[in-house]
Structures are given as C-alpha cells and as structure tokens.
C-alpha cells in the first residue's frame, strides 16, 4: 500500500476509530516509514493545540436575552393552554386525576339536575303568571261592567 493511502488512515487512527487489527497495521507502517510517522506526529500536535484553545463562552444573561426574544414571538394564549396542560399532566398523580375526573362527572350530573328542576320552577312561574293575568283580566272585565254604574253615580 502506498504512503498516500496510509496517510488517509492517520486521522481516524488518531480518533481511535479504527479496528484493533487495522491499528496494528498502521503502527507497523509508522515504525518503518519516517514520512508517515512525522505526519502522524503533526496531526497529533494539531489535535492537542486545538484542544488547548479555551472555549468561547456567551456573555452573561444569555437565557434572559433569549427569553425576551421568545416572549416577542410567543402567543400568550398558547402559553396559558400549555400551562393548564402542564398542571394536568405533571402536578397530579394518577389517583388524583381519577378523583378529579369522577368529581367532574358528579358535578356535571348535579348541575344538570339543578338545571332541570329550575326549568320546572320556571314552568310553575309561567302557570302562576297566566293565572295572575287571567285574574287581572277578570278584574278589568268586572271594572268595565262596573263603569257605567260609576258614571251613573256621577
């Protein structure tokens, strides 16, 4: 195999991304070939130099700046809905969820019952009103009858 082909393998050898057998072959070549050995040493030094450069860090308050940008984009309604979903999914244990579901069903049936009975109450009022109006009519009818008599008195 030519040196050009060996040199292509040096980088993955450096990264420990070659099989054990391949590694042995490469090492064997490096022992017998000064040019490839020098190149391997240079690549190794390049790696160590890159590693020695301290990482660049963002300035303080990165998250605060981010959340400001987020709040410009985020629709408030969605956040509220998500909030409720979160409360439901995370805040209650399973037993709690069942309890809430059962009480919701109970609450609904009780409200329905009350609603029904309030309807019949309304019906009663209607009947009462009709009876009241009828009695009023009777009164006015009686008044009409009485009117001439009243005039007569005058």
């Amino acid at each position, binding site marked *: 195999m030519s040196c050009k082909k060996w040199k292509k393998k040096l980088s993955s050898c450096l990264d420990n991304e070659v099989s054990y057998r391949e590694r042995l072959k490469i090492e064997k070549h490096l022992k017998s070939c000064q040019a490839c050995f020098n190149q391997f040493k240079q690549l190794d030094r*390049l790696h160590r130099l890159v590693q020695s450069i*301290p990482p660049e*860090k963002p300035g303080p308050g*990165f998250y605060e700046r*981010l959340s400001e940008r987020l709040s410009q984009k985020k629709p408030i309604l969605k956040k509220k809905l998500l909030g409720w979903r*979160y409360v439901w999914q995370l805040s209650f244990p399973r037993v709690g969820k069942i309890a809430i579901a059962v009480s919701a069903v109970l609450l609904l049936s009780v409200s329905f019952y009350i609603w029904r009975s309030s309807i019949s109450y309304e019906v009663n009022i209607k009947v009462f009103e009709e009876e009241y109006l009828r009695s009023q009519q009777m009164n006015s009818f009686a008044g009409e009858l009485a009117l001439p008599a009243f005039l007569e008195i005058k």
Partner: protein
Amino acid sequence: MQYSDEELVERFGAGDEESFKMLVERYQDRVYHIVYGIVGNKEEAEDLSQEVFLRVYRFLHRFKGKSRFYTWLYRLTINVCLSAKRKRKNEPAKIFSLANPSEHGDDPGEIELADESLSPWKILQNREMAEKIKSAINSLSEVLKSTFVLREFEELSYEELARVFQCSRGTIKSRLSRAREQLRRKIEPYLNGAV
C-alpha cells in the same frame, strides 16, 4: 435533582417552561462554542446561538427521542450556521474577513492558552498560534469545518457525527482526514516545535 436531557424534553413537551430553561443552561456554552468555531465572530455567534434555542423551543415537539437529544441539538446548530452562511453569501459586500478574527472586534488579548506557568514571550507566541489555528479552521469549507468542530470541540464519535450529518461513517472519516490535512498544511511551521 438532576434531570436527564430526555426527562427535560418530556417535561417541556408537557408545557414546563422551567425545563426549557434548564436545557438552555446545560447546553448554551457548548452550542455557543460550536457556533463560534463555525462563524468565527462573537456577535454572530451570540445571535445564531439564540436562534438555535429559539428553534429548539419551536421544534422540540418534533424530537421523537430516536437518538440522543444532543445529536438532535447539534444537527439543528449546524443547520442554523450553514443556512446563515448561505444567506450571507447572497448578501452584497461582506465587511469583515472571517480569516482574520481581530478585524471584527475580537480582542486578541482575550485568547489565552491553558498553561499559566509560561513566560510572557511564550504566552504571546501561544496567542499568536491560537489565532493562526482559529483562522486556519475558519478557512475550511463549511462542511469540513462543522464536522471538524463537532469532533474536536464536542468529541462526538464517528457514529454520532454520521447521525448529526445524516451521512455514512465513511464520509465522516474522509471529511475529518481532509480537514486535518488542510489544517496541517496551513500551520505546519507551528506543528514541528515542542508544545
């Protein structure tokens, strides 16, 4: 209590904003470091790192947990960087040259190498070397650069890199080999002395 990435993702999916904050704080330095390695200047690195997390916020529900969270995050990071570069290529007249970081407001005095016991002359030489390496990295093509940066800065395995770039392990292997060969040629004088 320390949540795993995956737990935080799940909690955020259920609407817990605090989990998003924890994810940001866990990864902001690493994302910034990668972005800086690719774009080469602080202002843009800040802006694009924020863009990365804005997209995390918007698209995290698409993350299905088939791979590790950080490979998904790094893929997003690379996408943001490369699409910003593509956009900028269509813009007229670039003001700053990426090959020389000191031209766009980066104070070379801020770069220091780890060993504090070095003499001032050595430190100066190291700073110069760090600058040379950075500008050499900047001169790589976008694809070679981002592969190299993720390998060197984040020490991702070839398998993980293949997942990030959605290509074969062989492609990663050849990209890294080419990137290193180009860098080696560029800074060869610095690679022969003792470090």
